[in-house]
C-alpha cells in the first residue's frame, strides 16, 4: 500500500510537469494550428539556463545565504529567457510560413528542434550538467511514504503556475483575447486584437511554462542533457492530444494522466518500457477519439 502511495505521489509530480509542457503545445496549436516540434527544446533550454543561474548563485555564495530568493530569481529569469527565445523563433521560423502549406511549417519546426538541441549541445557540452544539490535536502515521512521537500516544492510550484495560467486565460482581458484569437482569428482582428501580438504572447507563455518544468526536472533528477527535450516533448504532446488539443484544462488533465500512467506502468508493469505507455495512449486516443477527453472540435477550421 505504501508503494502505491509513493507511486501516486510520483505520478502526480510527473503529471504536473507534463501538464506544464503540454500547455505550451496546446495553446500554440489552438492559436495557429501548428504542432511546435521545437517546444521540447524550450523545456531543455529552461533546464540549462536554470542550472547556469543556480551555478552562478552558488559560486557567488548567494545560494547559501538567500536560497528562496535565488530559486525564485532562477525560475523567473529562466522563464523570461525561454519566452524571449520562443518569441524570436516564432518570428523567424514560423511567421513567414503562415501562408504556406502545413508541411512547410512542420518541417521548419522540425529543423528548429534539431537546431536548438544542437545549439545547446555546442554551447554547453555533450555531458550532463549537474544541478547544485544542496537545496532541499531531506523530507518527511507520512506512514511508510517518504515525501522529500524538493518534491513538495515542485508540486507547489506546478500548482501555482497552473492556477496562474488559469486565471490569466479565463479571468483577464488578455486571456479573453487569447481565447478569441484561437476561435476566430479574423473576427478578433476586427475587434482590434492584434493576432501577431497574441501569437507571440502565446509562444512566450508556453515556453515559460516549459522552462519552469525544465528547471524543476533539473532540480529533481540532479542534471540536464542537451537532448532531454525529445522524449518529454512527445509525451507532453500526447498529453495535450489526450486532453483535447487546443483545450487548456484538457492539457492539464492529460498531463496528469500521462504522468500517472507512466509511473504506475513503470512500477507495476515494466520499468524498461515506460516510455512506450505514453505513445500507446497517444495512438489509442487519436484512433478512437481524436478530439480527446475534453472533446475539442479539431475539425473546426477557422479561417
Amino acid at each position, binding site marked *: 500500500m505504501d508503494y502505491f502511495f509513493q507511486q501516486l505521489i510520483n505520478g502526480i509530480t510527473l503529471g504536473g510537469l507534463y501538464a506544464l509542457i503540454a500547455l505550451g503545445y496546446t495553446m500554440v496549436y489552438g492559436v495557429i494550428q501548428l504542432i511546435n516540434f521545437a517546444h521540447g527544446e524550450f523545456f531543455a533550454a529552461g533546464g540549462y539556463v536554470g542550472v547556469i543561474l543556480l551555478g552562478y548563485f552558488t559560486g557567488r555564495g548567494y545560494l547559501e545565504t538567500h536560497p528562496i530568493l535565488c530559486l525564485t530569481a532562477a525560475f523567473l529569469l529562466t522563464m523570461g529567457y525561454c519566452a524571449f527565445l520562443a518569441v524570436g523563433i516564432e518570428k523567424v521560423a514560423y511567421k513567414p510560413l503562415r501562408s504556406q502549406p502545413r508541411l512547410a511549417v512542420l518541417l521548419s519546426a522540425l529543423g528548429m528542434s534539431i537546431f536548438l538541441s544542437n545549439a545547446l549541445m555546442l554551447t554547453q557540452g555533450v555531458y550532463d550538467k549537474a544541478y547544485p544539490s544542496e537545496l532541499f535536502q531531506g523530507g518527511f515521512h507520512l506512514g511508510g511514504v517518504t515525501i522529500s521537500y524538493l518534491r513538495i516544492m515542485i508540486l507547489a510550484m506546478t500548482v501555482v503556475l497552473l492556477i496562474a495560467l488559469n486565471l490569466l486565460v479565463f479571468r483577464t*482581458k488578455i486571456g*479573453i*483575447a487569447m*481565447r*478569441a484569437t484561437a*476561435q*476566430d482569428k*479574423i*473576427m*478578433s*482582428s*476586427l*475587434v*482590434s*486584437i*492584434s*493576432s501577431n501580438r497574441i501569437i507571440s504572447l502565446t509562444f512566450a507563455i508556453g515556453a515559460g511554462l516549459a522552462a519552469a518544468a525544465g528547471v524543476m526536472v533539473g532540480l529533481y533528477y540532479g542534471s540536464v542533457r542537451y537532448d532531454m527535450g525529445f522524449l518529454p516533448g512527445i509525451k507532453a504532446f500526447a498529453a495535450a492530444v489526450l486532453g483535447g488539443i487546443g483545450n487548456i484544462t484538457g492539457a492539464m488533465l492529460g498531463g496528469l494522466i500521462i504522468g500517472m500512467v507512466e509511473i504506475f506502468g513503470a512500477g507495476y508493469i515494466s520499468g524498461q518500457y515506460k516510455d512506450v505507455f505514453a505513445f500507446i495512449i497517444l495512438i489509442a486516443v487519436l484512433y478512437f477519439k481524436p478530439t480527446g477527453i475534453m472533446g475539442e472540435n479539431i475539425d473546426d477550421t477557422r479561417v
Partner: protein
Amino acid sequence: MEPILQLNDIVTSYGRIQALKGISIQVFPGEIVAMIGANGAGKSTTLMAICGVLPIDRGEIYFKGQAIQGMPPEKLPPMGLCQVPEGRRIFPRLTVDENLALGAFYRHDTEEIEKDLDTVYGLFPILKDRRRQHGGTLSGGEQQMLAIGRALMSRPQVLLLDEPSLGLAPLVVQKIFDIINDINRTQSTTILLVEQNANLALQTAQRGYVLETGRIIMEDRAETLMHNPEIRKAYLGE
C-alpha cells in the same frame, strides 16, 4: 461635406479572378448607405477590403480623410470603424459578457465601458438573461444581436453591416433594423449596409449602390432605386 468613408477604384483579386473590378463608393457622415446585389457580386468582399482583411491590388480607401488601405484590421476600431461581418461570427466559446467586452477591447475607460454595457443590455434585454452563456449556444437572432451589441461597444462612428438579416425570422429582423435606425438617429452613427434583402435595405437607407459581378452598376437615392423598374425586376422580386 466631406465623405467619412471613401473608396476609389478598388480592385481585388482571388487568384487570377478579379473579385472587385474598380469600386468607388462615398459614404457621408450620418447617413445610411445600402449596397445591394446578387450573391457573389462582391458586397462582402468590399467590406472585407475596407477593413484590411482582404488585400487590395489597386485603389485607395479613405476614412475620415486618412488613407487606410493596407492597414492591419486591428487598427480600425480605435479609429472609429467597425464591422459586423456576415454570419454573425460571435466567439462561440466565450460568454455573452466576454463577447461584448471584446467589442471594447481597445478602450481603457472602464467606467464608460460599464455604461455602454448597460446600454447594450438595455437594447437587447434577452442578452442580459443569457450573459453567462456561451455564444455558440445562442439562437441565430440572439447571435446577431450579440454581434451588433459587440460592435456598439466600440463606439463606432462608421458601422459596416454585412447581411444582418440573413437567416433570421421576420420579427427578429424587424427588431434589428429598428435598432439600426435607432443608433443612426440618436448617435449619428454612419452605416454602410450590405444586404441581400434589397427591399429592407432600400427602405432603411438614404442612398444605395447596386453591385453586379464586382462593379457598381448603379448609384442613387434609395427611393429612386426602389422605383426603378430594372432594379425592381432584378432585386425586388417583381
